[in-house]
Protein backbone atom coordinates (compact mmCIF):
# COMPACT_ATOMS: atom_id res chain seq x y z
CA UNK A 1 0.00 0.00 0.00
CA UNK A 2 1.47 3.33 -0.99
CA UNK A 3 0.65 6.48 0.91
CA UNK A 4 -0.78 9.58 -0.70
CA UNK A 5 1.77 12.40 -0.94
CA UNK A 6 2.28 14.70 2.05
CA UNK A 7 4.93 17.11 3.18
CA UNK A 8 7.16 15.93 6.01
CA UNK A 9 8.55 18.26 8.67
CA UNK A 10 11.18 17.40 11.23
CA UNK A 11 11.44 20.09 13.90
CA UNK A 12 14.18 19.90 16.53
CA UNK A 13 12.62 21.71 19.49
CA UNK A 14 9.24 21.98 21.19
CA UNK A 15 9.03 25.68 20.30
CA UNK A 16 9.72 24.98 16.62
CA UNK A 17 7.16 22.19 16.69
CA UNK A 18 4.31 24.28 18.06
CA UNK A 19 5.33 27.13 15.71
CA UNK A 20 4.93 24.74 12.78
CA UNK A 21 1.63 23.56 14.23
CA UNK A 22 0.38 27.14 14.28
CA UNK A 23 1.36 27.81 10.67
CA UNK A 24 -0.10 24.50 9.44
CA UNK A 25 -3.31 25.09 11.39
CA UNK A 26 -5.44 21.96 11.18
CA UNK A 27 -3.73 20.64 8.05
CA UNK A 28 -1.27 18.29 9.74
CA UNK A 29 -0.84 15.32 12.03
CA UNK A 30 1.97 14.72 14.46
CA UNK A 31 3.93 11.55 13.74
CA UNK A 32 5.46 9.75 16.73
CA UNK A 33 6.23 6.05 16.21
CA UNK A 34 3.67 5.93 13.41
CA UNK A 35 2.33 2.53 14.44
CA UNK A 36 -1.20 3.87 14.76
CA UNK A 37 -1.17 6.77 12.30
CA UNK A 38 0.45 5.02 9.34
CA UNK A 39 -1.93 2.02 9.24
CA UNK A 40 -4.78 4.54 9.32
CA UNK A 41 -3.18 6.57 6.52
CA UNK A 42 -2.77 3.38 4.49
CA UNK A 43 -6.51 2.88 4.83
CA UNK A 44 -7.16 6.48 3.75
CA UNK A 45 -8.58 7.47 7.10
CA UNK A 46 -8.61 11.23 7.61
CA UNK A 47 -5.46 12.13 5.66
CA UNK A 48 -3.75 15.48 6.16
CA UNK A 49 -1.34 17.17 3.74
CA UNK A 50 1.47 17.59 6.30
CA UNK A 51 3.14 15.33 8.85
CA UNK A 52 5.24 16.75 11.66
CA UNK A 53 7.67 14.05 12.81
CA UNK A 54 8.58 14.32 16.50
CA UNK A 55 11.59 11.99 16.65
CA UNK A 56 14.22 14.76 16.48
CA UNK A 57 12.88 16.79 19.41
CA UNK A 58 15.22 15.93 22.32
CA UNK A 59 12.89 17.23 25.04
CA UNK A 60 10.32 14.57 24.15
CA UNK A 61 12.66 11.61 24.64
CA UNK A 62 14.05 9.90 27.73
CA UNK A 63 12.40 8.77 30.92
CA UNK A 64 12.89 8.58 34.67
CA UNK A 65 10.74 7.30 37.55
CA UNK A 66 8.96 10.68 37.59
CA UNK A 67 8.71 11.60 33.94
CA UNK A 68 8.10 9.76 30.69
CA UNK A 69 8.94 11.84 27.62
CA UNK A 70 6.11 11.61 25.08
CA UNK A 71 8.49 10.00 22.60
CA UNK A 72 9.71 7.31 25.04
CA UNK A 73 9.50 4.04 23.16
CA UNK A 74 7.38 1.39 24.86
CA UNK A 75 10.13 -1.21 24.37
CA UNK A 76 12.61 0.94 26.31
CA UNK A 77 10.21 1.48 29.21
CA UNK A 78 9.44 -2.24 29.30
CA UNK A 79 13.15 -2.98 29.77
CA UNK A 80 13.54 -0.75 32.84
CA UNK A 81 13.18 -2.88 36.00
CA UNK A 82 13.18 0.14 38.34
CA UNK A 83 10.22 1.62 36.47
CA UNK A 84 8.38 -1.71 36.64
CA UNK A 85 8.96 -1.99 40.40
CA UNK A 86 7.76 1.56 41.04
CA UNK A 87 4.72 1.41 38.72
CA UNK A 88 3.47 -2.19 38.56
CA UNK A 89 0.17 -1.52 36.75
CA UNK A 90 2.12 0.38 34.08
CA UNK A 91 4.57 -2.53 33.77
CA UNK A 92 1.65 -4.91 33.16
CA UNK A 93 0.15 -2.62 30.55
CA UNK A 94 3.45 -2.10 28.70
CA UNK A 95 3.83 -5.85 28.21
CA UNK A 96 0.29 -6.07 26.84
CA UNK A 97 0.49 -3.42 24.12
CA UNK A 98 0.51 -4.93 20.63
CA UNK A 99 3.68 -6.95 19.92
CA UNK A 100 7.36 -6.45 20.80
CA UNK A 101 7.96 -5.25 17.24
CA UNK A 102 5.22 -2.62 17.47
CA UNK A 103 6.50 -1.60 20.91
CA UNK A 104 9.99 -1.05 19.47
CA UNK A 105 8.57 1.95 17.57
CA UNK A 106 5.41 2.83 19.51
CA UNK A 107 5.62 5.69 22.02
CA UNK A 108 3.89 6.73 25.23
CA UNK A 109 2.42 9.87 23.65
CA UNK A 110 1.09 7.95 20.67
CA UNK A 111 -0.43 5.38 23.00
CA UNK A 112 -2.31 7.95 25.10
CA UNK A 113 -3.57 9.64 21.93
CA UNK A 114 -4.16 6.50 19.89
CA UNK A 115 -7.08 6.89 17.48
CA UNK A 116 -10.35 5.40 18.72
CA UNK A 117 -11.33 2.20 16.96
CA UNK A 118 -14.44 0.67 15.45
CA UNK A 119 -15.14 -2.34 13.31
CA UNK A 120 -16.66 -0.03 10.67
CA UNK A 121 -13.80 2.50 10.76
CA UNK A 122 -10.62 0.39 10.76
CA UNK A 123 -11.22 -0.92 7.27
CA UNK A 124 -9.80 -0.27 3.83
CA UNK A 125 -11.14 2.56 1.71
CA UNK A 126 -12.73 0.01 -0.63
CA UNK A 127 -14.51 -1.76 2.26
CA UNK A 128 -15.81 1.50 3.68
CA UNK A 129 -16.85 2.83 0.29
CA UNK A 130 -18.79 -0.38 -0.35
CA UNK A 131 -20.74 -0.27 2.89
CA UNK A 132 -21.11 3.48 3.01
CA UNK A 133 -18.83 5.80 4.99
CA UNK A 134 -19.48 6.75 8.60
CA UNK A 135 -19.33 9.89 10.73
CA UNK A 136 -15.75 9.29 11.79
CA UNK A 137 -14.40 9.36 8.24
CA UNK A 138 -15.98 10.67 5.07
CA UNK A 139 -19.62 9.92 5.97
CA UNK A 140 -22.73 11.17 7.72
CA UNK A 141 -24.11 8.23 9.68
CA UNK A 142 -23.11 5.70 12.30
CA UNK A 143 -23.37 1.99 11.51
CA UNK A 144 -23.27 0.97 15.16
CA UNK A 145 -25.94 3.19 16.66
CA UNK A 146 -27.72 4.61 13.65
CA UNK A 147 -28.20 8.35 14.08
CA UNK A 148 -26.51 11.39 12.78
CA UNK A 149 -24.47 12.94 15.55
CA UNK A 150 -22.54 10.65 17.87
CA UNK A 151 -19.65 8.26 17.26
CA UNK A 152 -19.07 5.37 19.66
CA UNK A 153 -15.58 4.36 18.50
CA UNK A 154 -13.67 2.71 21.34
CA UNK A 155 -10.63 4.13 23.10
CA UNK A 156 -8.19 1.23 22.73
CA UNK A 157 -4.95 2.35 24.38
CA UNK A 158 -3.56 0.13 27.11
CA UNK A 159 -1.42 2.61 28.98
CA UNK A 160 -4.07 5.18 29.87
CA UNK A 161 -5.89 3.13 32.54
CA UNK A 162 -2.58 2.07 34.09
CA UNK A 163 -1.35 5.67 34.20
CA UNK A 164 -4.68 6.96 35.50
CA UNK A 165 -4.41 4.76 38.60
CA UNK A 166 -0.95 6.28 39.16
CA UNK A 167 -2.52 9.77 39.25
CA UNK A 168 -0.41 10.70 36.21
CA UNK A 169 -0.36 14.23 34.81
CA UNK A 170 0.38 15.32 31.28
CA UNK A 171 2.46 18.28 30.17
CA UNK A 172 1.14 19.96 27.07
CA UNK A 173 2.74 22.62 24.88
CA UNK A 174 0.73 24.74 22.50
CA UNK A 175 0.77 27.95 20.53
CA UNK A 176 -0.12 29.84 23.71
CA UNK A 177 2.36 28.19 26.09
CA UNK A 178 2.56 25.19 28.37
CA UNK A 179 0.11 23.64 30.78
CA UNK A 180 0.02 20.60 33.02
CA UNK A 181 -3.23 18.77 33.73
CA UNK A 182 -4.28 15.48 35.31
CA UNK A 183 -4.37 12.72 32.70
CA UNK A 184 -8.12 12.35 33.27
CA UNK A 185 -8.49 15.86 31.86
CA UNK A 186 -6.88 14.88 28.56
CA UNK A 187 -9.97 12.90 27.61
CA UNK A 188 -13.21 14.67 26.90
CA UNK A 189 -15.79 12.87 29.02
CA UNK A 190 -18.54 14.87 27.34
CA UNK A 191 -17.26 14.09 23.85
CA UNK A 192 -17.57 11.04 21.64
CA UNK A 193 -15.43 8.75 19.48
CA UNK A 194 -14.52 11.68 17.23
CA UNK A 195 -14.30 14.62 19.66
CA UNK A 196 -12.49 12.62 22.27
CA UNK A 197 -9.66 14.81 23.54
CA UNK A 198 -9.46 18.19 25.24
CA UNK A 199 -6.31 19.15 23.32
CA UNK A 200 -6.58 22.50 21.56
CA UNK A 201 -5.59 22.74 17.89
CA UNK A 202 -1.83 22.29 17.49
CA UNK A 203 -1.20 21.21 21.07
CA UNK A 204 1.64 18.78 21.61
CA UNK A 205 1.98 16.22 24.38
CA UNK A 206 5.43 16.79 25.88
CA UNK A 207 5.60 14.34 28.77
CA UNK A 208 3.74 12.27 31.33
CA UNK A 209 4.56 13.11 34.94
CA UNK A 210 4.30 10.37 37.55
CA UNK A 211 3.75 11.89 41.01
CA UNK A 212 6.04 10.46 43.71
CA UNK A 213 3.07 10.20 46.13
CA UNK A 214 1.64 7.38 44.01
CA UNK A 215 4.93 5.56 43.47
CA UNK A 216 5.11 2.05 44.87
CA UNK A 217 1.38 1.48 45.02
CA UNK A 218 0.58 -2.15 44.38
CA UNK A 219 -1.11 -2.48 41.06
CA UNK A 220 -2.39 -4.62 38.28
CA UNK A 221 -3.61 -4.17 34.71
CA UNK A 222 -5.75 -6.89 33.15
CA UNK A 223 -6.59 -6.92 29.49
CA UNK A 224 -9.29 -8.77 27.60
CA UNK A 225 -8.53 -9.57 23.98
CA UNK A 226 -9.14 -12.30 21.46
CA UNK A 227 -5.60 -13.11 20.32
CA UNK A 228 -3.12 -12.53 23.14
CA UNK A 229 -0.22 -11.85 20.76
CA UNK A 230 -1.41 -8.57 19.28
CA UNK A 231 -5.05 -7.63 19.59
CA UNK A 232 -6.16 -4.26 20.85
CA UNK A 233 -7.99 -4.34 24.19
CA UNK A 234 -11.65 -5.30 24.22
CA UNK A 235 -11.46 -4.17 27.84
CA UNK A 236 -8.65 -3.03 30.11
CA UNK A 237 -8.95 -2.74 33.89
CA UNK A 238 -6.27 -1.10 36.03
CA UNK A 239 -6.12 -1.06 39.81
CA UNK A 240 -3.58 0.51 42.16
CA UNK A 241 -3.60 0.96 45.89
CA UNK A 242 -1.99 0.66 49.26
CA UNK A 243 -3.04 -1.64 52.08
CA UNK A 244 -1.94 -1.40 55.73
CA UNK A 245 -0.60 -4.31 57.78
CA UNK A 246 -4.15 -5.34 58.70
CA UNK A 247 -5.22 -5.50 55.08
CA UNK A 248 -7.19 -2.25 55.29
CA UNK A 249 -7.29 -0.12 52.17
CA UNK A 250 -5.31 3.10 52.58
CA UNK A 251 -5.85 4.36 49.05
CA UNK A 252 -7.40 2.79 46.00
CA UNK A 253 -7.74 3.77 42.34
CA UNK A 254 -9.54 1.99 39.53
CA UNK A 255 -9.71 2.80 35.82
CA UNK A 256 -11.34 1.16 32.82
CA UNK A 257 -10.35 1.48 29.17
CA UNK A 258 -11.07 -0.36 25.95
CA UNK A 259 -14.81 -0.23 26.48
CA UNK A 260 -16.02 3.28 25.63
CA UNK A 261 -14.77 6.31 23.65
CA UNK A 262 -12.59 7.39 26.57
CA UNK A 263 -10.93 5.72 29.56
CA UNK A 264 -12.29 6.62 32.97
CA UNK A 265 -11.76 6.43 36.70
CA UNK A 266 -14.19 5.57 39.49
CA UNK A 267 -12.96 7.61 42.46
CA UNK A 268 -16.47 8.00 43.86
CA UNK A 269 -16.71 4.20 44.17
CA UNK A 270 -13.19 3.51 45.41
CA UNK A 271 -12.86 6.34 47.95
CA UNK A 272 -15.54 4.90 50.31
CA UNK A 273 -13.53 1.66 50.51
CA UNK A 274 -10.61 3.40 52.20
CA UNK A 275 -10.22 2.12 55.76
CA UNK A 276 -12.03 -1.12 54.93
CA UNK A 277 -10.83 -4.62 54.29
CA UNK A 278 -11.70 -5.97 50.87
CA UNK A 279 -13.33 -9.38 50.84
CA UNK A 280 -14.92 -11.35 48.03
CA UNK A 281 -18.30 -9.70 48.58
CA UNK A 282 -16.92 -6.15 48.51
CA UNK A 283 -14.82 -6.84 45.43
CA UNK A 284 -17.81 -8.38 43.68
CA UNK A 285 -20.06 -5.46 44.62
CA UNK A 286 -17.57 -2.94 43.27
CA UNK A 287 -17.19 -5.00 40.09
CA UNK A 288 -20.98 -5.07 39.56
CA UNK A 289 -21.30 -1.33 40.10
CA UNK A 290 -18.49 -0.51 37.66
CA UNK A 291 -19.98 -2.91 35.11
CA UNK A 292 -23.36 -1.24 35.51
CA UNK A 293 -21.83 2.10 34.49
CA UNK A 294 -19.60 0.98 31.61
CA UNK A 295 -21.45 0.85 28.32
CA UNK A 296 -19.68 -0.92 25.48
CA UNK A 297 -21.36 -0.99 22.06
CA UNK A 298 -21.10 -3.57 19.30
CA UNK A 299 -18.10 -2.26 17.37
CA UNK A 300 -15.34 -4.71 18.31
CA UNK A 301 -14.90 -8.49 17.99
CA UNK A 302 -16.64 -9.47 21.21
CA UNK A 303 -20.28 -8.73 21.89
CA UNK A 304 -20.97 -5.89 24.33
CA UNK A 305 -22.97 -8.07 26.74
CA UNK A 306 -19.91 -10.25 27.25
CA UNK A 307 -17.53 -7.31 27.60
CA UNK A 308 -19.84 -5.75 30.17
CA UNK A 309 -19.95 -8.97 32.20
CA UNK A 310 -16.19 -9.18 32.00
CA UNK A 311 -15.88 -5.70 33.52
CA UNK A 312 -17.20 -7.12 36.79
CA UNK A 313 -14.93 -10.18 36.57
CA UNK A 314 -11.81 -8.18 35.72
CA UNK A 315 -12.44 -5.62 38.46
CA UNK A 316 -12.71 -8.42 41.00
CA UNK A 317 -9.61 -10.19 39.75
CA UNK A 318 -7.51 -7.05 39.39
CA UNK A 319 -8.38 -5.97 42.94
CA UNK A 320 -7.50 -9.34 44.41
CA UNK A 321 -4.28 -9.67 42.44
CA UNK A 322 -3.16 -6.13 43.20
CA UNK A 323 -3.72 -6.69 46.91
CA UNK A 324 -1.75 -9.91 46.79
CA UNK A 325 1.03 -7.89 45.20
CA UNK A 326 1.29 -10.24 42.28
CA UNK A 327 1.92 -7.22 40.13
CA UNK A 328 5.53 -6.96 39.08
Amino acid at each position, binding site marked *: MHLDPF*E*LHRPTSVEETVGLARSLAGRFDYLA*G*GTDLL*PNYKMHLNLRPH*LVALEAVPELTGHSLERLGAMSRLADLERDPALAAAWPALADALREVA*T*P*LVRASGTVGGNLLVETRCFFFNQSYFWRASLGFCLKADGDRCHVVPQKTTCYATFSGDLAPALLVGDAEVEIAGPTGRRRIPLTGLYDAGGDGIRRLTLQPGELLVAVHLPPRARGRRGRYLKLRVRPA*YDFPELGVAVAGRWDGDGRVQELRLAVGGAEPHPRTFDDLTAPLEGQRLNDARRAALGEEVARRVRPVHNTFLVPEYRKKMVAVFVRRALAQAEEGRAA
Partner: protein
Amino acid sequence: MGSDDRVSFTLNDRPVQAACPPERILLDLLREELRLTGTKRGCDLGTCGCCTVLIDGRPTLSCLTLARLVEARSVTTIEGVSPAQGLSAVQRAFVELGATQCGFCTPGFVMTATALLREHPHPSRSEIEQAISGNLCRCTGYLAIVRAIESAAGSAP
Protein backbone atom coordinates in the same frame (compact mmCIF):
# COMPACT_ATOMS: atom_id res chain seq x y z
CA MET B 1 13.36 18.60 5.84
CA GLY B 2 15.93 18.58 3.06
CA SER B 3 14.20 20.07 0.08
CA ASP B 4 15.59 17.51 -2.36
CA ASP B 5 13.61 14.29 -2.28
CA ARG B 6 16.45 11.96 -1.34
CA VAL B 7 17.51 9.83 1.59
CA SER B 8 21.04 8.76 2.56
CA PHE B 9 21.74 6.01 5.03
CA THR B 10 23.86 2.96 5.67
CA LEU B 11 22.34 -0.20 4.25
CA ASN B 12 23.96 -3.50 5.16
CA ASP B 13 27.19 -1.69 6.02
CA ARG B 14 27.35 0.27 2.77
CA PRO B 15 26.36 3.89 2.22
CA VAL B 16 23.34 4.33 -0.07
CA GLN B 17 21.48 7.30 -1.48
CA ALA B 18 18.12 7.01 -3.13
CA ALA B 19 15.37 9.14 -4.56
CA CYS B 20 12.66 9.15 -1.91
CA PRO B 21 9.54 11.29 -1.62
CA PRO B 22 8.30 11.89 1.96
CA GLU B 23 5.45 9.41 1.70
CA ARG B 24 7.69 6.49 0.68
CA ILE B 25 7.57 3.64 3.18
CA LEU B 26 10.89 1.96 4.00
CA LEU B 27 9.61 -1.47 2.93
CA ASP B 28 8.69 -0.09 -0.50
CA LEU B 29 12.01 1.70 -0.88
CA LEU B 30 13.89 -1.51 -0.07
CA ARG B 31 11.87 -3.77 -2.32
CA GLU B 32 10.91 -1.55 -5.21
CA GLU B 33 13.70 1.01 -5.44
CA LEU B 34 16.71 -0.81 -4.04
CA ARG B 35 15.59 -4.25 -5.23
CA LEU B 36 16.25 -5.97 -1.92
CA THR B 37 13.28 -8.31 -1.96
CA GLY B 38 14.37 -10.50 0.96
CA THR B 39 12.30 -8.27 3.26
CA LYS B 40 8.71 -9.43 2.77
CA ARG B 41 5.41 -7.61 2.63
CA GLY B 42 2.84 -9.64 4.54
CA CYS B 43 0.05 -7.56 6.02
CA ASP B 44 1.54 -4.11 5.35
CA LEU B 45 -0.17 -2.97 8.58
CA GLY B 46 2.14 -3.91 11.45
CA THR B 47 0.61 -7.24 12.37
CA CYS B 48 2.78 -9.99 10.88
CA GLY B 49 6.46 -9.09 11.29
CA CYS B 50 7.45 -10.30 7.80
CA CYS B 51 8.93 -6.88 7.02
CA THR B 52 11.24 -6.71 10.07
CA VAL B 53 14.62 -5.03 9.56
CA LEU B 54 17.16 -3.72 12.07
CA ILE B 55 17.47 0.05 12.38
CA ASP B 56 20.55 0.94 14.43
CA GLY B 57 20.37 -2.65 15.68
CA ARG B 58 16.76 -2.47 16.78
CA PRO B 59 14.15 -4.72 15.15
CA THR B 60 11.69 -2.46 13.35
CA LEU B 61 8.66 -2.97 11.13
CA SER B 62 9.69 -1.48 7.79
CA CYS B 63 6.05 -1.35 6.62
CA LEU B 64 5.34 1.28 9.31
CA THR B 65 8.51 3.33 8.88
CA LEU B 66 8.86 6.38 6.66
CA ALA B 67 11.99 5.88 4.59
CA ARG B 68 13.03 9.51 4.98
CA LEU B 69 13.30 9.02 8.73
CA VAL B 70 16.16 6.52 8.40
CA GLU B 71 18.33 9.41 7.15
CA ALA B 72 21.88 8.90 8.54
CA ARG B 73 20.90 5.68 10.31
CA SER B 74 22.06 2.14 9.78
CA VAL B 75 19.62 -0.38 8.32
CA THR B 76 20.26 -4.12 8.19
CA THR B 77 18.06 -6.38 6.10
CA ILE B 78 18.07 -10.15 5.72
CA GLU B 79 20.53 -9.64 2.85
CA GLY B 80 22.98 -8.16 5.36
CA VAL B 81 22.96 -10.76 8.14
CA SER B 82 25.07 -13.46 6.49
CA PRO B 83 28.85 -13.36 6.86
CA ALA B 84 30.97 -13.12 3.66
CA GLN B 85 30.90 -16.88 3.38
CA GLY B 86 27.94 -19.05 4.27
CA LEU B 87 25.10 -18.34 6.68
CA SER B 88 24.79 -16.73 10.09
CA ALA B 89 24.28 -19.00 13.10
CA VAL B 90 20.56 -18.15 13.18
CA GLN B 91 20.13 -18.83 9.48
CA ARG B 92 22.01 -22.13 9.77
CA ALA B 93 19.87 -23.23 12.71
CA PHE B 94 16.68 -22.43 10.77
CA VAL B 95 17.86 -24.58 7.88
CA GLU B 96 19.15 -27.46 9.96
CA LEU B 97 16.15 -27.69 12.28
CA GLY B 98 13.47 -27.33 9.63
CA ALA B 99 12.24 -24.00 10.98
CA THR B 100 11.20 -22.88 7.54
CA GLN B 101 8.56 -24.31 5.25
CA CYS B 102 7.17 -21.91 2.62
CA GLY B 103 9.78 -19.45 3.89
CA PHE B 104 7.75 -16.28 3.56
CA CYS B 105 7.97 -15.41 7.25
CA THR B 106 11.57 -16.56 7.64
CA PRO B 107 13.44 -13.31 6.93
CA GLY B 108 11.36 -11.55 9.58
CA PHE B 109 11.95 -14.30 12.14
CA VAL B 110 15.69 -14.30 11.42
CA MET B 111 15.90 -10.54 11.96
CA THR B 112 13.91 -10.71 15.21
CA ALA B 113 15.97 -13.66 16.46
CA THR B 114 19.23 -11.96 15.50
CA ALA B 115 18.30 -8.88 17.52
CA LEU B 116 17.14 -11.01 20.45
CA LEU B 117 20.38 -12.99 20.62
CA ARG B 118 22.47 -9.83 20.46
CA GLU B 119 20.55 -8.49 23.46
CA HIS B 120 20.24 -11.82 25.34
CA PRO B 121 22.82 -14.38 24.19
CA HIS B 122 21.07 -17.06 26.31
CA PRO B 123 17.34 -16.38 26.31
CA SER B 124 14.92 -18.67 28.12
CA ARG B 125 12.25 -20.44 26.11
CA SER B 126 9.62 -17.99 27.29
CA GLU B 127 11.84 -15.02 26.36
CA ILE B 128 12.13 -16.48 22.87
CA GLU B 129 8.37 -16.99 22.63
CA GLN B 130 7.79 -13.43 23.80
CA ALA B 131 10.32 -11.98 21.38
CA ILE B 132 8.80 -13.68 18.34
CA SER B 133 5.20 -12.99 19.32
CA GLY B 134 5.01 -10.24 16.68
CA ASN B 135 6.10 -12.57 13.88
CA LEU B 136 3.40 -14.74 12.36
CA CYS B 137 4.05 -18.04 10.63
CA ARG B 138 1.25 -19.90 8.90
CA CYS B 139 3.20 -23.09 8.25
CA THR B 140 5.48 -24.35 10.98
CA GLY B 141 3.45 -24.13 14.17
CA TYR B 142 6.40 -22.23 15.74
CA LEU B 143 7.95 -25.16 17.63
CA ALA B 144 10.76 -25.67 15.14
CA ILE B 145 11.38 -21.93 15.07
CA VAL B 146 11.72 -21.76 18.85
CA ARG B 147 14.08 -24.75 18.79
CA ALA B 148 16.18 -23.19 16.05
CA ILE B 149 16.60 -19.97 18.03
CA GLU B 150 17.48 -21.99 21.14
CA SER B 151 20.07 -23.88 19.19
CA ALA B 152 21.59 -20.72 17.69
CA ALA B 153 21.82 -19.15 21.16
CA GLY B 154 25.34 -18.92 22.41
CA SER B 155 26.97 -18.93 18.99
CA ALA B 156 27.67 -15.46 17.52
CA PRO B 157 24.37 -14.51 15.88
